[in-house]
């Protein structure tokens, strides 16, 4: 069989496009699992903050511990399926540095109020989604910007029910985003 170079170039383009879509769908499948898990935990964290504000700090520590444990469990399951290693020591170190800087900026430097903390963390996390989304897929950008906008609406316009608002906006938003990614 012989073909012209134009046809060969078209075939190679098809191959590159399919490979790009496989990589993106692999990322979306893992990300959707993570979003749903973190969404559930975040929902619980904000709900606990709303119901028992005095113990909110302990609640959020529990959320982070459960989230990291869940991520460590999901990662090898995904590795078996996709062959791609997704959570390793480097990823864990990046997460610790990210959270450490958040604590340094919001608690040590900023002395934020609980309401400001509840606004800062989702925006801080969603900023990463938006930046990562510039490379791996527009869904991350859309989810990140939507949650940032709704968080700011809550901060400025929602009164005492702010934590309850955030439970649905942040927790619910992550779950919905994860389900949407899974479907697509």
């Amino acid at each position, binding site marked *: 069989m012989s073909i012209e170079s134009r046809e060969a170039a078209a075939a190679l383009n098809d*191959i590159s496009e399919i490979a790009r879509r496989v990589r993106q769908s692999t990322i979306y499948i893992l990300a959707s699992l993570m979003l749903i898990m973190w969404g559930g935990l975040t929902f619980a964290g904000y709900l606990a903050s709303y119901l028992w504000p005095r113990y909110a700090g302990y609640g959020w520590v529990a959320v982070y511990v459960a989230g990291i444990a869940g991520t460590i469990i999901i990662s090898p399951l995904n590795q078996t399926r996709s062959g*791609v290693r997704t959570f390793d020591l480097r990823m864990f170190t990046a997460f610790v540095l990210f959270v450490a800087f958040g604590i340094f900026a919001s608690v040590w430097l900023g002395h934020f109020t609980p309401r400001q903390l509840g606004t800062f963390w989702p925006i801080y996390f969603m900023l990463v989604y938006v930046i990562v989304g510039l490379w791996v897929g527009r869904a991350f950008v859309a989810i990140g910007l939507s949650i940032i906008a709704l968080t700011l609406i809550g901060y400025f316009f929602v009164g005492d029910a702010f934590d309850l608002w955030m439970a649905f906006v942040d927790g619910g938003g992550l779950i919905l985003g994860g389900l949407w990614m899974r479907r697509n």
Partner: protein
Amino acid sequence: MAELDDIIHQPLRLKIMAALNALPAAAAGLEFSRLKKLTGATDGNLGAHIETLARAGYVAVDKAFVGKKPQTTVTATATGRGAFARHVATLQEIIAASAGQS
């Protein structure tokens, strides 16, 4: 110049092989439904072309039940990966030869 692989060169089979080869060799393959979305093919068409690739020994098809739902998973075999790599190399050679002539 090496010959193109007739089995792989058909457009849908090329997409199937490209999708399967985009995964690391250790991966568990792609489910039929995901392959369908990635290639934009219909059930019947996709099934027929997977069958052709399986007969050539380029892919392995695994049918299992996940809960009560049947799930078909398609994986590129070592033979298939080798054939695909040679096919891509031949495509690149054609382009390089054409560039050399002009």
